[in-house]
């Protein structure tokens, strides 16, 4: 039973990790790309690492150190990923990057420095 739960967590996490990246590739402008990066990625990594720790625990119940490291990694990512996304959006906003409102296509143009 718990095995299926671990499988489900892993697959769901993989789905979120992939769809988050798909959003980063497909969304029209920078500020909309922040959403998949900030939310779906964070959820995906929590699910994957949770599933992995469950799997490790089921495989060998005395692998406490590995589970501890996995929990440490997930805590670390849970803190740093939103903070990085916040920092990127903040810098972009302060630099005067305007969100896309649908009137003009500001994607794909040479806005690069």
């Amino acid at each position: 039973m718990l095995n299926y739960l671990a499988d489900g967590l892993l697959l769901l996490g993989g789905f979120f990790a992939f769809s988050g990246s798909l959003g980063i590739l497909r969304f029209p402008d920078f500020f909309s790309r922040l959403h998949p990066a900030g939310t779906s990625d964070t959820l995906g990594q929590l699910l994957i690492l949770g599933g992995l720790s469950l799997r490790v625990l089921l495989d060998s119940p005395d692998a406490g150190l590995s589970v501890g490291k996995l929990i440490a990694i997930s805590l670390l990512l849970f803190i740093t990923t939103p903070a990085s996304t916040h920092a990127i959006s903040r810098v972009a906003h302060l630099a005067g990057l305007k969100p896309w409102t649908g009137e003009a296509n500001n994607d794909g143009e040479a806005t690069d420095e």
Partner: protein
Amino acid sequence: MSESVVLRTIGGMLFPYILVYAFYVQMHGEIGPGGGFQAGVLVASAFILHAFLFGKAATDRLLPRWLVDLTMCLGVLLYIGVGIVGLVQGSYFLDYSVLDPAHPAHAEALGITLVEAGVGLTVASVILTMVRKVNGELE
């Protein structure tokens, strides 16, 4: 960016953990992967992060420049010193077994720990010095 409260809080939380992890890499280097070089780079990274988030002056207060210069030399001197102990005891240069003649294997572990500590000190201070000098001294 350094005025962002979120980043300052997160960075302040993370800074001691990076140092602790660097210490783990340093000391665990003879059992698992890792060692002085990697730990030195991590220590330097931690202080560079501190400088990014809290400003150069705060980092200088935390870690004065003379201390960085001192540890840079101390690392190499520690390595050479371990070697010279072997010479003084009448053996080869860098012969670790003289550190504890009754337990040569323990002596070797001790010697490797000391030597890696020297490498870590030097690498950390050299990288910190490079970044500090190029960024701060030419204005």
